[in-house]
């Protein structure tokens, strides 16, 4: 797909209506790309409702007969742990992470964006550098630390780091947003006797709400999807998250388990889809503003 269409003679003033076929071609192309992209999702939904024999025999996308029992099987869960338990575990971790990131990252961001202190330049540069730091460089010692603290196979290693602003991407995101707020606000507040703490909580934080919501939603989705950290730190089935429980399907690739396996995959994707539908404006704009200044 490109915008360079055969007729180089098309005037470039996009403000005027171009030839109708051109617009039609663009929409056709976009819809075609969209159809290909949505196919895996449609396939997932369809397969989660297919009876076992159809998964193997039939090439149709749509199931001939809806097999709802895939979902009842999926609800029973894995390793004797119900989906409700897995869902609760996932929500607990994601919720803790959201709270931690919003709190700690906004505190750090306020200091970097609005306060003056020695070493601000170097520390800010270091903070930015940690965005690029591969997780693996700190992974093993972190594991050893949490192991020493007796926290392996608990949720602390998954939640605690978020309360310490270790996800520098969000600090950066909030810093960028706070820099856009007019300085006069705090100056007026200072004249009225507000210290930095009251300025932060009463003036800056409420105005930063869009960035905080973006942080919260991204944290939720990324934590929900994060497989690697959960794989390393959790090993009791009753502490598993939905994502981790899907792991037990990784080894078993027999197609008779396809229906329940993809029913469970749908359940695991559902919260992300709902979040996306509810907050897509924040998500798309949050992503856009991370790459383009201003």
């Amino acid at each position, binding site marked *: 797909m490109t915008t360079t269409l055969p007729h180089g003679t098309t005037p470039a003033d996009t403000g005027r209506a171009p030839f109708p076929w051109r617009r039609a071609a663009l929409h056709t192309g976009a819809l075609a790309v969209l159809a290909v992209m949505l196919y895996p999702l449609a396939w997932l939904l369809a397969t989660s409702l297919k009876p076992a024999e159809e998964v193997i025999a039939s090439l149709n996308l749509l199931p001939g007969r809806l097999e709802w029992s895939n979902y009842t099987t999926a609800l029973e869960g894995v390793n004797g742990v119900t989906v409700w338990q897995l869902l609760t575990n996932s929500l607990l971790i994601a919720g803790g992470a959201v709270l931690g990131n919003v709190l700690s990252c906004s505190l750090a961001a306020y200091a970097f964006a609005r306060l003056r202190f020695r070493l601000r330049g170097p*520390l800010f*540069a270091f903070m930015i550098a940690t965005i690029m*730091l591969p997780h693996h460089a700190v992974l093993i*010692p972190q594991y050893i630390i949490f192991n020493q603290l007796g926290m392996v196979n608990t949720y602390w290693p998954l939640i605690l780091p978020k309360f310490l602003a270790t996800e520098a991407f969000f600090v950066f995101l909030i810093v960028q947003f706070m820099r856009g707020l007019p300085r006069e606000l705090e100056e007026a507040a200072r004249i009225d006797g507000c210290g930095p703490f009251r300025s932060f909580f009463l003036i800056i934080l409420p105005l930063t709400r869009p960035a905080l919501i973006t942080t919260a939603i991204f944290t939720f989705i990324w934590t929900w999807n994060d497989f690697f950290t959960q794989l390393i730190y959790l090993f009791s089935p009753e502490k598993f998250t939905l*994502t981790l429980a899907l792991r037990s399907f990784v080894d078993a690739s027999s197609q008779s388990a396809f229906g329940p396996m993809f029913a469970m995959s749908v359940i695991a994707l559902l919260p992300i889809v709902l979040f996306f539908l509810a907050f897509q404006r924040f998500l798309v704009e949050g*992503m856009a503003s991370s790459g383009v200044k201003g």
Partner: protein
Amino acid sequence: MTTTDIPVTPARRGGATGPKRPGRPGGRRREGAAWVFLSPWVLGASVLTLLPMAVSLYLSFTDYDMFNAPSWVGLRNYTQMFTEDPRYWRSVGATLRYVVIAVPLQLAVALAVAMALKSMRRGRAFYRSAFYAPSLLGASMSIALVWRAIFNDGGTVDNLLGTGGWVNRPEWALFAVALLTVWQFGAPMVIFLAGLQQIPGELYEAASVDGASRWRQFLSITLPMLSPVVFFNLVLQTIQAFQVFTPAFAVSAGKGGPADSTLFYTLYLYDRGFVASHMGYASAMAWVLLLAIGAVTAVLFRTSRSWVFYADEEGR
């Protein structure tokens, strides 16, 4: 790392109140307040970032299995890695192949779609959101499992193209994983689109008055004006691609197969450290990854001086 090249411009306090005299009690109190705000980050950065980096560097020179005290082996892990471990090199090869295939392809698709959307007047917001959705879903285990099934023997791709299952064939399995990355082009696309919308329309008007073709306009206006955004996406996606784990784990049942073709670096690191309990070896691998990502980022930053164009530097 290459932090010095990042345009770090800590916002200056507006000069309205004039410069603070040093030693004024209010100033010192403010400095104290800053450190209170900063304290969670300072704790996290030192205990969960700096200290672990130092420890993993130390461990990389030891033999360590989590149960017995680490024993110093000097450069043994590194020499073993580079000279005696063919799987290590296969993991390096798979990762580099994946990065070189997936990242440019993903960015090219992202840019093409962003340009198409930019010239649309209706439905742009809808497409933008719809194309972005896979970027959020694609990192999940659910989608990784879907991918394995679609690219398996008897899966959709097999039925459609008759090429057999990609994930079972050493020469194709990597492409299956790369396509999952390309599928997630929405995040860079959204950033490209935002960048495209900031290019002033007068530039195109002037160019078309001068009779420049669309292709010429793309080369002479769009690409240079967009180059900071291209650069941002390139750095971000490259760093992320070096660390990809979940799809390779799902596609190969955690083993990196077939024939180590999807044995990504992180998968092998996980295998050495957490499956085989060679924490020292895994730490050495982690440090090589850190240095490799640092080097690649540094090279990108260095070459960027010749192709990234910042309009505000030209006194616009």
